């Protein structure tokens, strides 16, 4: 209490003293104060006038119109920008990412085919090996082209993808070199050819193929990621459009109360424009989402599993041939052969049960692939039986004849199914692209029209006050 009382009195005195000095100072105006007043005096005055104006009915209307115009403009611009980006990204997916993944798949498959053919050719006598030789050369050619194509899709020089391609590109010529040395030695009747072929095959299986597999998986993942990213609804720009519509609604309600008119034509037209924009964007979003979901189920997933099944089959075929060439027990390798066949059959069954099987002749091709697997399995059992009874020559003849035909049939049918799945995937991406096309320009145009309609709509109301 005493402390407060003791403080009160001097403060009071000080106030008085300050007041008197203050008035004296105002009269003499400090240069800084005058500078501030000169700089901001006019704007302050304008602001004051504006505020006064805004407090009036026409003022409020003007302010509201500007706010709505800004809201519509912002929503439209943001949606247009987002759609534009989406369109560019879809183009990239269609023109770069997906083709790159396809090239990576071709690379993986042709490398695997090359190894199978080199091994098969080795097991055959000279006349029979011409066909394998032809298929080997084609596979190497395709692998080289596919590796180049895949590399063309790499945008960043430090990515893992480029590292893998660089590895494959360095090792592929070494591989082909070793295969040629093996071949030359064979033709010269030198058994060391077998050792060179074993070295080549080990290089392919231990280093090149794993790199190609990783590359394929990376690019496939990139496609899936981009696709799922692009099929998500554009929530933020969409909510902007919805907000603009809500503003329009509130404004009309307010106008009705202020002007006692039920509808303002301009605002109604603007609302229509914005509704059209919202519907358009929503439809585009839905089509994209639908294409993405269906595309994932009907194209992307089957594409991956079919591709994997095809490689598994190629590796099983190489194993089978190698076991014969090396005179190893087929029975020992049976477990891996049987599990490979089971995985292939599961893939084919899943495929036949999926909606994509209904397209074109897919079901027929899947059935043909399945019966090829059946025949291959029967041949393999017979092969093991022949080998188990010491009939090596008969086993070899069976492996290079009927078994080879079964495998070739299977591989050809798988190639058809894979190519169909790929064109499906692309057509879904194109669907999304078509749905996104024009959205950007359209939404922007509609937003401008809505702003013009709002301005035109408010003009007669403002004129009533002038």
């Amino acid at each position, binding site marked *: 209490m005493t402390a407060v009382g003791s403080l009160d009195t001097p403060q009071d005195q000080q106030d008085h003293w300050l007041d008197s000095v203050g008035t004296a100072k105002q009269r003499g105006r400090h240069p800084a104060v005058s500078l501030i007043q000169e700089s901001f005096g006019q704007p302050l005055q304008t602001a004051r006038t504006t505020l006064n104006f805004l407090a009036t009915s026409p003022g409020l209307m003007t302010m509201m119109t500007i706010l709505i115009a800004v809201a519509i403009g912002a929503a439209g611009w943001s949606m247009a920008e987002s759609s534009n980006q989406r369109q560019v990204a879809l183009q990239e997916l269609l023109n770069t990412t997906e083709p790159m993944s396809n090239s990576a798949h071709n690379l993986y498959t042709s490398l695997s085919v090359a190894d199978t053919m080199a091994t098969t050719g080795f097991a055959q006598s000279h006349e029979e090996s011409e066909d394998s030789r032809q298929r080997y050369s084609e596979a190497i050619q395709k692998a080289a082209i596919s590796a180049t194509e895949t590399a063309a899709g790499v945008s960043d020089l430090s990515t893992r993808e480029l590292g893998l391609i660089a590895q494959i590109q360095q090792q592929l010529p070494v591989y082909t070199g070793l295969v040629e040395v093996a071949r030359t030695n064979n033709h010269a009747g030198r058994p060391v050819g077998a050792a060179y072929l074993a070295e080549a095959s080990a290089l392919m299986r231990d280093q090149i193929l794993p790199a190609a597999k990783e590359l394929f998986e990376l690019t496939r993942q990139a496609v899936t990621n981009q696709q799922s990213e692009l099929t998500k609804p554009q929530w933020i720009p969409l909510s902007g459009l919805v907000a603009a519509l809500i503003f329009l609604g509130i404004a009309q309600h307010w106008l009705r109360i202020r002007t006692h008119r039920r509808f303002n034509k301009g605002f109604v037209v603007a609302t229509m424009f914005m509704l059209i924009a919202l519907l358009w964007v929503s439809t585009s979003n839905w089509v994209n989402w639908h294409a993405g979901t269906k595309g994932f189920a009907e194209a992307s997933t089957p594409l991956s599993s079919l591709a994997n099944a095809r490689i598994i089959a190629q590796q099983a075929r190489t194993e089978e041939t190698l076991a014969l060439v090396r005179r190893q*027990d087929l029975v020992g390798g049976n477990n891996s052969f049987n599990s490979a066949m089971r995985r292939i059959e599961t893939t084919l069954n899943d495929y036949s049960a999926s909606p994509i099987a209904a397209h074109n002749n897919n079901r027929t091709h899947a059935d043909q692939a399945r019966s090829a697997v059946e025949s291959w399995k029967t041949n393999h059992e017979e092969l093991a039986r022949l080998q188990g009874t010491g009939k090596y020559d008969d086993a070899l003849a069976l492996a290079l004849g009927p078994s080879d035909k079964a495998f070739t049939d299977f591989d050809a049918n798988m190639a058809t199914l894979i190519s169909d799945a790929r064109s499906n995937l692309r057509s879904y991406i194109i669907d999304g692209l078509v749905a996104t096309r024009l959205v950007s320009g359209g939404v922007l145009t509609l937003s401008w029209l809505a702003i013009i309609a709002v301005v035109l709509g408010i003009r007669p109301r403002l004129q009533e006050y002038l």
Partner: protein
Amino acid sequence: MSAHKTFFAVAAAGCLALASCAAPLDETQQPWALPDAVPLPPQASIEQPGTHPGAQVLTTGLQGSLRPDGRTPEERVPRIMERGYLLVGVDQSQNLLSFRNPATGELEGFEVELAREIATDIFGDPSKVDFRFVDSSDSVFALEAKQVDIVIRAMTITRERQDQVTFSTPYFSAQTRMLSFNETEIHTVEDLAGKMVCVTDGSTALQRTRRLAPEATIMKVRGAADCLVALQQNQADVIVSDDAILSGIAAQDPYTRIVGDPIATELYGIAMATPGAKHDTDGLVRQVNSTIERMREDGTWWKLYEQWLSKYQDTPGPPELAYRDEDNEE
């Protein structure tokens, strides 16, 4: 003009000194370059000098084989007779001994013919043989697992191996030697120091190289053919193996020759599972030995030697028969 030249020269020198400024243009900087583009032969492994002392290869005091008795093949090997063919483990690419003729796809060579002679004595038909390829490391396993009846794979009879398998009487006498390029500087075992020496993993040559050339780096591979690959790819400087095997290598590459004095003498035996509770192979050992004896006597041994090996090496002839004294045992 000369001022410009000087400027560029200085700038270039500066760039050479500062790696960072030369980096974008540096042609030697290949971030993706693999250290070794050409791979070593499959499953090859490198052993640094002195990391393994090398076991003594004991080829003295060997146990003799089982002497052929007067029984018929039906009595000696009824199980094999019943099956109808003999299962023989061989090397898949040992030129001249056992190898696949690339032109015909048929297996050929001294050891393959030896197997056919054994089949002839059992079945009266040289084609009753099913060959399986076995690596030196899995021969014992193949015998134990009954994947093959016998292994004919240039296996030197040693005391260590006699603990694992039972050998026939020796069918071939070979000498450990070295093989390199014609113009090689390697002439003695001492010259191996600091060189890359290729040997077959699990071979007596590996043990001998470890002991005799402790300063040599050793490349261990699956078979002699892989050694030739390593030599031709300039990954190895020299191969240490037996002359019978080295002959097969020299026959495939005119740029190579066998060099130096013999390092050791090796006696090859046909390996079989040791007779006992698990393996009823007593009769088989005697059956195989009877064939080896017959080949010595009727000139078949010399015929095969002339056909496959005489062009490339010399021989003292078929090795002495070596049987254990069974009357004194138990």
